[in-house]
């Protein structure tokens, strides 16, 4: 109990962990910022009737979901620079995470879009809506409600997956805790870091409950 019995040491650890958490949070928010919209494009590509588009997109999704995220992270960090020049650690992480999560979001969106009744498209057609209008004004708003639950699952996983950036030495929450554990020989920093992740996901959970309630105004 070397940290919990020593307030001064504990405060120092907490401030280091908080700094690490800020890095974790920036990975988290930037990944969502890029992957949520990218996922929609991927979903549309996957659903395209044009084989030359849907086939490579399917292959991309297979690779992203079928191989370890950590391996993808290594690939971006060690091999991509050979083609395009040096990429800082944090940016490498964002690239790997964004492309990985976009694949998962794409499949969630695809499921949501395909679950919309054919009658909605027909009603839109006979009312004269164009295909783009039908998608934006009728299909998408209904899809959002249906995908909230699976999306919340992925977002919660992402909070924890940010710890994978430890593998390429990004100074995020998990790496800070691991270093503190190595230097002190106490597992307390790792458990405290665990509480940090739990706190973040509690907020995520509440946020999605609130969002779900906001979409409760209709059934369907």
């Amino acid at each position, binding site marked *: 109990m070397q940290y919990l019995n020593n307030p001064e040491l504990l405060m120092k650890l907490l401030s280091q962990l908080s700094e690490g958490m800020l890095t974790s949070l920036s990975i988290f928010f930037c990944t969502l910022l890029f992957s949520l919209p990218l996922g929609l494009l991927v979903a549309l590509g996957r659903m395209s009737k044009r084989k030359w588009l849907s086939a490579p997109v399917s292959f991309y999704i297979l690779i992203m979901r079928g191989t370890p995220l950590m391996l993808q992270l290594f690939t971006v960090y060690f091999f991509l620079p050979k083609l395009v020049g040096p990429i800082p650690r944090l940016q490498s992480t964002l690239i790997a995470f964004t492309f990985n999560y976009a694949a998962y979001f794409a499949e969630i969106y695809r499921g949501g879009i395909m679950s919309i*009744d054919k*009658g909605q498209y027909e009603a839109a057609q*006979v*009312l*004269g*809506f164009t295909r783009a209008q039908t998608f934006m*004004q009728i299909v998408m708003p209904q899809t959002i409600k249906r995908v909230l639950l699976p999306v919340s699952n992925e977002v919660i996983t992402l909070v924890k997956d940010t710890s994978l950036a430890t593998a390429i030495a990004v100074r995020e929450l998990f790496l800070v805790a691991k270093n503190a554990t190595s230097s002190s020989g106490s597992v307390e920093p790792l458990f405290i870091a665990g509480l940090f992740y739990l706190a973040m996901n509690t907020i995520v959970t509440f946020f999605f409950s609130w969002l779900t309630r906001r979409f409760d105004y209709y*059934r*369907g």
Partner: protein
Amino acid sequence: MLEVSHIAKAFENEAVLRDVSLTVRQGQVVAIIGRSGSGKSTLLRCLNHLETVDAGEIRIDGVPMVSADENGKPAYAPKAELRKLCLKMGFVFQNYNLFPHMTVLRNLCQAQERVLGRSKAEALVRARALLAKVGLSDKERQYPCQLSGGQQQRVAIARALALDPEILCFDEPTSALDPQLTQEVLNVIRELAAEKRTMIVVTHEMRFAREVADYVIFMQDGVIRAQGTPEEVMGQNRTEELSAFMGLLGDD
């Protein structure tokens, strides 16, 4: 006003419509009757471009929606033209197909604003007038899921009318409703008939067809087997097939 000549349609080599021709004139109420699978819904869907025909011609106000090209294959009008022609037709579905995420009022205004380009105020006036007509003025702020099936179908009728179609098509509008709600919806259609609105109604309600329609089409196996005034088609001199069909429904 609507001319259909020799249209044919098959789903996976199974002929659903075979050489169907009909004409609908201004102010006419046409009822299409027949067993499930006789092709009557498919016919209606072809008129609204919800299905494409394999052969034949459809003209609305003399303008071809689809006509035979030089090889005799059906060629549809260009996209923009086609959309304009389809807007002359309104369509009411068996299961309403209201937009569940929009209020009743929004369901009626969205296409007026986004498709016809009417102002918000203009669309609102039209929507409220139509809601009053179908007796649902007090429901404008509700969502479809808060309404009964009959109310939803009346909203769907108002939504179709909001775009001022020349011909309103109903695809078994009461098949998903219990007898009481059915009457609610049929009363609205009766009122529209009294206003001399041009309508095509696919229905299983024989008494309604007889009472409201001025032209009845009886279909079987993708072919029109009898057509004429209700008296001609459903009266004493009706065909044996139709007698059998009406017998099945327990109607006179």
